[in-house]
Every structure is written in structure tokens, then in C-alpha cells.
């Protein structure tokens, strides 16, 4: 196709959009909403991943000791802990201290402990792990190793639920893919129908173009550009709305929640670019299918 024809194609595509502006506005709005649902899902997924990652940074672990453990035994456990990469002993909690803290925690319900003949709480070490060379701490592995050490009764780590959460994240990702796939099909359907309507509104012109010797591609390209423009506009608008919503959420959080832990992050640039390109590709593909079907008739 000659290069000098492209300005004509572009003019034609823009003229089509303007003359069928209501159909295009409806199509565009629906596409933006569909893409926005997908973007929001991706945004939440990215943030969940970040939060989970951040919690993994500051893993805390409690190593409960058997009752009646000797000083030597305790020393041995302490040295094992110190040999763990990234591990720091925050404090040692004796049985007595554990009970005192427990009493304090019970507050007004202290009466519950009346009649307790002995201190049932074990002594424990409280550990904090920092990432070593950026690697995530293998909490489950450490727990299993420590529980084999003589004198250790039980090991709990604060992010035990994170393991279960990983499974949930996998599920969310799967649901995301399914929703994303369905929304992509929806977007494709919307573009196809929008372009089909503009083709029908220009049926007479197409017929005349063909009669004066226009090739199929000469007629098809402006419609494909039309679909592509719709893809560009809807992709850009969906990302813009998401970004504005992100800005609002970021500031609102400071006012209402004041939880520094839950800092929102915007989707990475490569994801944004991918969504934009996906939207353009869907616009192009939808219009390609629509014109292809029309020219088969």
C-alpha cells in the first residue's frame, strides 16, 4: 500500500469516528469499563504481592523451650539460632516473664488465672529474620530444623498464614487470568460490533469505492485504523482513570487508615504498557474480524 495513501486512510478513519460519534462513544465507554476492571484486578494483585513480599522481609519467629531445660541446653539452642543466616535474637522470654506479660495482656479478665497451681507457659526466644542477599527467608525449613534441636518444644512463626496465603494468591492469579480472558473477549466483541455498525453506515460509500476500482485493503484499512484508534483511546483512558484513582487512594489512606504498612504502589510501567498494547491489539483484531466478515458477504 502506497505511503501517500496513509494520510487519506487516517482522515477517513477520523471522519468515520466523528460521523458515528455516538456509536463510538458507547463502544469506547464499554471498552474503558472492561479494561478498568482488568486494570483494577491487576492493581490489587500487584499490591498484594508487594505487601506479602514486604512482610517476608521482617519475619518473626518464636522458639518455645521445653520445661526444665538446663542452662547448657538453652545455650546450645541459642548458638544454633545465632548460626542461622539473617537471624537475630530480639529477646529471651523466661517462663516467669511470659506469665507476667500474659497477666498484663488479660487485664480485667485476670481472674481467669485464679486457681492456677503452676506456670503453664514455656520460656521462649523471640527471633527476627532479615533477608540474606535479597533471598526470601525459608521460614518453614528453619522451623523444621529448629524443632529437631534438643530442648525445643515448638516453633511458631508470625507469617505461617503467609504460606496459606500463597495458595490463595495462586487462586487469585488464576481467577485474574480467567477474568482477563473473558474481558478481552468482551472488548473484542465490542470493537467488532462498533466497526460493524460504522461499516453498515458507510455501505453505500464502500459500494461506490469498489465500483471505481478501490481494492479491498483500500476500503478495509480506514476501518482497521478506526478500531486501532478506539483501542488506543480506551487503553489510555483506562490507565489514566486507574492512575487518578491510585492518587486518590494514596492520599485518602493517610487520612483514614494511617497505616504505613499498606502503602499502595501503581502497576509497573511494563504492565501499563502491556495493557495499552493489548487494548490496541484488541481494537485492531476486532476491526480486522469485522471487515473480514463484511467482505466475505
Amino acid at each position: 500500500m502506497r505511503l501517500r495513501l496513509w494520510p487519506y486512510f487516517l482522515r477517513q478513519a477520523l471522519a468515520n469516528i466523528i460521523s458515528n460519534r455516538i456509536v463510538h462513544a458507547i463502544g469506547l465507554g464499554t471498552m474503558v469499563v472492561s479494561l478498568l476492571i482488568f486494570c483494577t484486578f491487576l492493581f490489587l494483585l500487584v499490591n498484594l504481592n508487594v505487601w506479602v513480599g514486604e512482610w517476608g522481609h521482617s519475619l518473626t519467629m518464636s522458639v518455645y523451650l521445653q520445661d526444665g531445660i538446663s542452662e547448657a541446653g538453652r545455650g546450645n539452642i541459642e548458638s544454633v539460632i545465632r548460626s542461622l543466616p539473617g537471624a537475630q535474637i530480639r529477646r529471651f522470654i523466661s517462663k516467669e516473664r511470659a506469665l507476667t506479660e500474659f497477666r498484663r495482656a488479660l487485664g480485667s479478665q485476670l481472674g481467669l488465672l485464679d486457681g492456677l497451681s503452676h506456670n503453664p507457659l514455656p520460656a521462649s526466644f523471640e527471633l527476627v529474620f532479615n533477608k540474606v542477599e535479597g533471598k526470601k527467608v525459608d521460614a518453614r525449613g528453619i522451623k523444621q530444623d529448629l524443632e529437631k534441636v534438643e530442648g525445643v518444644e515448638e516453633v511458631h512463626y508470625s507469617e505461617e498464614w503467609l504460606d496459606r496465603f500463597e495458595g490463595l494468591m495462586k487462586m487469585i492469579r488464576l481467577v485474574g487470568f480467567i477474568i482477563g480472558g473473558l474481558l478481552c473477549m468482551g472488548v473484542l466483541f465490542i470493537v467488532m460490533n462498533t466497526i460493524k455498525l460504522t461499516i453498515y453506515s458507510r455501505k453505500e460509500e464502500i459500494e461506490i469505492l469498489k465500483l471505481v476500482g478501490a481494492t479491498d485493503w483500500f476500503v478495509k484499512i480506514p476501518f482497521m485504523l478506526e478500531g486501532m484508534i478506539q483501542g488506543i483511546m480506551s487503553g489510555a483512558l483506562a490507565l489514566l482513570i486507574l492512575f487518578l484513582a491510585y492518587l486518590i487512594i494514596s492520599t485518602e489512606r493517610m487520612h483514614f487508615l494511617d497505616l504505613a504498612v499498606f502503602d499502595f504502589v501503581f502497576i509497573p510501567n511494563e504492565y501499563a504498557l502491556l495493557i495499552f498494547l493489548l487494548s490496541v491489539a484488541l481494537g485492531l483484531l476486532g476491526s480486522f474480524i469485522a471487515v473480514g466478515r463484511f467482505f466475505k458477504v
Partner: protein
Amino acid sequence: MIHLFHLYKNFGPSIALSDVNLRVHEGEFVFISGPSGAGKTTLLRLIFGAERPTSGHILINGINLNRISRLKLDLLRRKIGFVFQDFKLLPAKTVFENVALALEVTGERRSLIRKKTRQSLKLVDLVDKEQAYPLELSGGEQQRVAIARAIVKDPLILLADEPTGNLDPDLTKDIMVLFKSIHMKGATVVIATHSRELLEDTEQGKIFLNRGRIFGEK
């Protein structure tokens, strides 16, 4: 140039053309005449490739339209000018844009498109109406726009379906002079008409059609 062999065309049960055999040589000027419903328009549309024959063959410059690809047919149409009976002008485009359309599809330079479109409009005496829209014109003026569009690409073959049907006698003469000048430049011209005046006034070849059959040639 145009060669038709045992051409048949049916529209459902009705027979539009039956066993039409015809040869129009390069540079010939031919009238196809006959009453309404004789098959004149169908014959022109078949030559133009706008319809496919039920059976038989059409050869244009040795190219069999039955065996031509879609793309080659598009390219062949660029060498054929067609003046439609119902004009087929786009109401949303100006007179200039309607005429220029025939060149735009070929990918010509914009400057050349402008120049040739103006020349063509000058030939049909419509330069002063180039910015008007078809619906603002009279039937005769619309007819002339359709002629301007057909001749703007310097066609090798010019097919015209009742091109003077909406014109008064003076304009009819002018348009016929225009067709003859295009013919003088070397184009093969085939005009379908039921106008007896037009046929009596000319010495060109005449083919008579009735009920889809050729029943006479002069």
C-alpha cells in the same frame, strides 16, 4: 476489446440475458438500445464485473472475467469508467470529492488528483459547483458529476447507462460531444439508451436488445 460469448444471466426464475454474443473492438463507439427491461443495464454491469454471468464468458482486453481474481478485477475497473443510471454519488461528499474519489483509490499524488479533477469538472461545465453537495444540484447536474467521475481517470473503456436520461436536448448534445471527444482520444465507448432521438442523430454502431436477446446490429 470487449468480447461476449454465449452469455446468460438469470435473476432467480427471470431471464435477464439469453445467449448474448457480442464483439466491440478497441476504439469503437457503440450504442446498446432497447426498451426498458431489455437487459441493457445488466449487460453493462456484466461487462464491468459488477455482476457474474450465469453462464458464458466475458473477455475484456483478453482477460476472462470469470477467471480473474478480486484484486485484478479492482485494478481492471480503474481502466473502465462507468456512468450509472442512478449516478451513485455520495451525498456527504462535495462534487469535487465525488469526482476525486475515482483517482484517490489509485493512490495518485494529491496535486495530480486536484489538477485532473478540475479538468474533468471543466469538461462537464461544473467548475463553479465543485464545493456543492449532490443534493443541492439538479438531476442533470448530478448526471454530469457522474460523467466527470467516469472520465477523470482517462478510461480505456467508458460504459454509460442512460447518460442523457435526465438532460434537456441542449445538454444531451453537449454530453454527446463530450463522449465523442473521449472516444476521439482512443477510448472504447458503450452507451446504453432507450432514446430514439439519440440513435437517429448518430452514425455510430447500434446493437438492439429485446427480452435479453440481441435481435439486430447496425
